[in-house]
């Protein structure tokens, strides 16, 4: 497989064309707006936490295939999970992205997220893949603060 094909896995292009959980929804405790200053990609993202669970993640994102697909996969992975477990998934995705292509992804944890393994070899695209994940972490932290 060429590096390009490794980057643009079918799974990524599918999520890009049909993003899951897109759009902004109520209820939510925190809404954040993150941008990638290099290219201007943006995401507005809301998190609803209830009873220690990530009950909902909704978002409105403008950006490239990698950043859009990443938001979709992220929402799939964390919605309905206990906050702790979702944070662990975030950690695991971050490790994959910062691994310069040397980290083996764990499909049991990352599911469709393993398709991003090829992105780690393109330093300029790592930020794209992480944009919505960082926004989610930020919003979740804020949600927890609101509640305490």
């Amino acid at each position, binding site marked *: 497989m060429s590096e390009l094909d490794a980057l643009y896995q079918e799974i990524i292009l599918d999520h890009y064309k049909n993003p899951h959980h897109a759009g902004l929804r109520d209820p939510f405790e925190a809404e954040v707006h993150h941008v990638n200053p290099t*290219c*201007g*990609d*943006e995401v507005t993202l809301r998190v609803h936490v209830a009873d220690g669970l990530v009950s909902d993640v909704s978002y409105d994102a403008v*950006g490239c295939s*990698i950043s859009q697909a990443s938001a979709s996969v992220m929402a799939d992975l964390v919605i309905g999970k206990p906050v702790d477990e979702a944070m662990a998934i975030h950690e695991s995705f971050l490790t994959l992205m910062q691994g310069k292509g040397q980290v083996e992804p764990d499909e049991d944890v990352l599911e469709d997220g393993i398709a991003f393994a090829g992105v780690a070899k393109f330093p300029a695209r790592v930020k794209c893949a992480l944009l919505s994940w960082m926004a989610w972490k930020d919003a979740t932290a804020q949600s927890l603060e609101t509640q305490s």
Partner: protein
Amino acid sequence: MKGLLPELEVIRKDFPILERTVSGGLPLIYLDSANTSQKPQVVIDAMVDHLEHHNANIARAMHTLGAESTEAFEAARDKVAAFLGAPSRDEVIFTKNASEALNLIAGTLAWKGPRQVGEGDEVVITEMEHHSNIVPWQLLTERTGATLRWFGLTDDGQLDLADIDTLVTERTKVVAFTWVSNMLGTINPVAELTRRAHEVGAIVVVDASQAAPQLPIDLAAMAPEERPDVVVFTGHKVVGPTGIGVLWGRAGLLGELPPFLGGGEMIETVRMERSTYAPIPHKFEAGTPPITEAIGLGAAVDYLGHLGLAAVRDHEHAITAYALDGLATIPGLRVLGPLDPTRRGGAISFEIDGVHPHDVAQVLDSRGIAVRAGHHCARPAHARFGVQSSTRMSSYLYTTPSEIDALVEALEYTRSYFKLD
């Protein structure tokens, strides 16, 4: 093709990086020169020769190396003055880049002096500026209570001068605009805007970061009322090194401005209680300047002068025209900015229906073609055209028609890669 630089293949040999391959053996096709230009061997050699044989601090040093270094540094100032046709070589200030040069003007206007900007005053910029010609003026006006206003853009990417008389008034203290847009390619009417601004007593600051690489500039030949008060550009876009920029300013104006950075070299006498300052150019060059970089820039403008800026401009026009024709063959491709190649610079931003600019740039990179994707530090201009980002190809004096062919072919491939047909 008419207008190309003669002996283009020989010129290309001057640029060692063009021998490079990328993406597993493909030749490099560098179409990101509006971002930064590549460097000819003669510039690299001038820097190396300085570092290996003449390195010393300038002005302060009383020894042989110090004298050689000072002479080389000041000779670079002479070369830059000649490159701009500056009325006086002392009006040439070395900064670290174009951004610092713009901040130097905007920053000093905040402080006490005959030109101080304050409440009730207005600064006029345009919607097509690079962030480096927006943010300094936002900081100035926010910090002093002045008001920031701006020219909008027409649908074909020109400045909308319809409101000029309501925008530029006696309240206007500064009019700042780019000579050539780094996103749209638009060439702005410098003489006309400057004349109008001078009528109301405003100072005119021109960002020539994209003009200096590709247009002949002759400040001394301009009518005084049409000559801007300040012109800035950046070394790394005119085949020179990073770490160096240029501010040319009318001596009278520079004399009226208070100091920018304080420190060694910019002083006359220092007492603990109070200091007095050196005359220009040194007044605005605090600390050890970018010496090796100035020497590299001197070699760079010499190199351009040797090719002839008129010939470089013609080359850019020919390549740009050829590229616009090629891009027009791609389905769903829209160019942002003027379409007449003789009235624009060599940066062409475009979007392709259904593929995000990042993804375009990525596929091109896999074919060895370097372009830029994003907002090119011109987010407001992108917003004006309702887009988040664009892909930009930018040619320079070493660009060949066959590189443009490769770009057009790669864009076709990109569309098919993303299954757009």
